[in-house]
């Protein structure tokens, strides 16, 4: 996972700084355009029952949990960490929220009060953040490798979630709760506002505080950052905690969307998708270089891919192959080396190109 930076370090860095998001954006645009060509309905938006309705809205709404997790994951990865427990943490948060709501008998009430909801959200998010903190402690204090430290919670977490829900899918019909994942505000899915708020919070943190600088310093050279007086341990702990929090939020969105918490399925394989999103967005898994917008785009790309597969109606056996080929295509498109060799081939094939 190392790249030998030998040729034109400055050149590349500059080119990257100039348009780091160009390729992910282009990819997303191509995907959407391709869908639009196959099915013109795809890009259309309608106003229905007081809100926007259409595939684009679905994609954004479906991508929301993944975006949240990817945002949290981006910062963890930027400091050379990794969190593969996000899916399990999402499941824990979802079951805790559902369990609390059921405990408070908030499911059956006709005039739902908001108190149980807040209690449930607070409990779920607190536990999710605690899970993140736990991961952070294992990595920072116990010095375990991130992948193993978080693997522990990944394995045990779903068990904990099932334990809370006693192996059952907890169904909650609580109107305010289902608003989280289903409701519309100003015509847009409410989940988008959750994402926007998280994104804005992070953006402000990175712009207005030295967090961004410290994170990048830690990612590029943790030891030098430590010597320079950056409190690397505290920051790592905080980032893992935040990642857990994001995973919790994602779990809430997913479960509220279907008004039930399924400890088995909430956040299934979310860790892989989130890491993939982060990579697609141009963040280096080796740490240091990261982009929040990139991760957002990455998550959107993945969801668009999934929706495309559903929309064009390929048989389900083909899903994985289609996804693989698209990921390969996306990555190759983003590889400067590949574009270079394509140019080389073109020159050779097209007569009079070079000579």
């Amino acid at each position, binding site marked *: 996972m190392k790249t030998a930076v030998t040729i034109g370090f*400055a050149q590349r860095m500059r080119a990257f700084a100039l348009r780091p998001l160009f390729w992910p954006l282009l990819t997303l645009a191509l995907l959407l355009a391709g869908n639009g060509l196959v099915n013109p309905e795809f890009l259309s938006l309608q106003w229905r029952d007081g809100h926007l309705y259409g595939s684009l809205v679905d994609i954004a709404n479906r991508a929301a949990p993944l975006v949240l997790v990817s945002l949290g994951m981006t910062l963890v990865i930027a400091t050379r960490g990794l969190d593969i427990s996000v899916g399990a943490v999402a499941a824990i948060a979802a079951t805790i929220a559902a369990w609390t709501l059921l405990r408070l008998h908030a499911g059956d009430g006709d005039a739902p009060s908001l108190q149980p909801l807040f209690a449930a959200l607070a409990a779920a998010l607190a536990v999710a953040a605690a899970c993140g903190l736990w991961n952070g402690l294992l990595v920072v204090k116990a010095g375990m490798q991130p992948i193993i430290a978080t693997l522990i919670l990944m394995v045990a977490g779903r068990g904990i979630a099932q334990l809370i829900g006693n192996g059952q899918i907890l169904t909650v019909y609580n109107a305010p709760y289902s608003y989280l994942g289903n409701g519309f505000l100003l015509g847009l899915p409410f989940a988008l506002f959750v994402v926007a708020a998280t994104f804005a919070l992070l953006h402000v943190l990175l712009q207005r505080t030295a967090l961004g600088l*410290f994170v990048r*310093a830690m990612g*590029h*050279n943790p030891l030098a950052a430590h010597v320079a007086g950056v409190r690397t*341990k505290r920051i790592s702990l905080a980032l893992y905690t935040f990642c857990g929090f994001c995973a919790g939020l994602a779990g809430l969105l997913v479960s509220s969307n279907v008004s039930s918490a399924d400890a088995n399925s909430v956040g299934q394989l979310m860790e892989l998708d989130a890491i993939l999103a982060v990579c697609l967005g141009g963040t280096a898994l080796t740490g240091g270089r990261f982009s929040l917008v990139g991760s957002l785009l990455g998550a959107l790309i993945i969801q668009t891919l999934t929706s495309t597969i559903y929309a064009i109606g390929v048989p389900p056996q083909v899903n994985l192959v289609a996804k693989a080929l698209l990921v390969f295509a996306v990555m190759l498109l983003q590889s400067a080396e590949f574009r270079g060799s394509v140019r080389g081939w073109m020159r050779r094939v097209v007569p009079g190109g070079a000579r």
Partner: protein
Amino acid sequence: MVLQAEGLTRRFGETLALDDVALTLRTGEVHALMGQNGAGKSTLIKLLTGAERADAGSIRIDGRAIAPATPLDAQREGISTVYQEVNLCPNLSVAENLYAGRFPRNRFGLIDWPRVRRGARELMAQLHLDVDVDSLLGSHPVAVQQMVAIARALGVSARVLILDEPTSSLDEGEVRELFRVMRQLRERGMAILFVTHFLDQVYAVSDRITVLRNGRRVGEYTPSELPQSALVTAMVGREVVLAKGHARSGAMAEDAPVVAEAEGLGLRGRLQPTDLRLRAGEVLGLGGLLGSGRTELARLLFGLDRPGQGRLRVAGRDAAFRDPADAIAAGFALCPEERKTEGIVAGLSVRENIILALQARMGLRRFLPRARQEELARRFVDLLGIASASIETPVGALSGGNQQKVVLARWLATEPTLLILDEPTRGIDIAAKQEVMAEVERRADEGMAVLFISAEIEELTRLCDRIAVMRERAKAGELPGGSGAEQVLALIAGHEAEAAGAA
């Protein structure tokens, strides 16, 4: 003539690192390549060895044109290289680093480990280096790593040997060994290209000098036709007065407040209990041989390692630093010895590297406004003469000496009460070295305490108000300001009486 390069040109973005440069290496000569930081020496070497591709130009070996695309190609052409930064694998043993890529094999086709070890020991012995060849390379200080890199290059029976600042971390003893070996190789007809910023080394060993300035070749000379001052002028492009050793007085320091005081500070196996008193406005030099424990003392003072015994008092009060951040909060600064691993953050820009420690001290929330960051960065770029396309250039793209200046700038920017400098002038050219010294002196005059660690005795005697000498991981003694180099050397060598007598 073994190697002949012509018209070598290399551009990095807006920087023209090399512009139509020619170089000729003859058999059996030691050829010094001189130039200021950022002049293009390392770039030239990288082009010759296939580590970078030239934009234009040709390279010939024995009149035959070659175009090495990788270091491996260059090795096959008989060019053996030690790059500026130690480029070995820290996770492999010393012996493996010496033989990687050319392991001898036994009749099963497997690596013949006994032969590797034997050969490695011989190579180390050739340099009079006492190192366990089975130990991990990364467990050694840079100086030893640098020697291993040199030994690796020597081990290849090459026709051309290229050494990019091989002596930057070495002390006099090691340098002498290296020069002895270089002379031997020259006798055998090898061509050696060699970069250094120490003028006396140039005159001690080289047969010919090529000078670069701003990516262009100034000329090729023999040492006899180019006296030191003329060499400096050729490198810098204008006349520079080399400061004579005006020793600091040391008088005013006696009643100055004590900034920090170590009482029996030590760590089992690394440093014997040591006392040290650092006063405001005083430059305290720390001398000693490789591995004498100077770096360890600095690390303990700065909270990078936790002391096993003794205590540290800062401004009269006990202090227990749990990590560098605590030390920085107390007004300490440590410019570390290992530039690559503990100093620069290669992926960050010059500006970000310079403000990093200051920002860390100010904390997460009080983020320096962008304008202030730029102002600070510009100030230090000017002050230390950092050659960089802009303050937004990633530090990884700077030349070695300029990276070192950036690290220095980072710590000067924190305006500490105690500045610990561990070999701060490594790889910095002579002109810049003077600037650095002057700046340190200026700060000391303003009341900053300085702990100055250096392998160069002359540097110590010139700059310091007082000199402490370390030997075998313990403090051997202290000398007052104005002591001569012989006294320091005597103390280093363990002749206390001589040192005292001379004083």
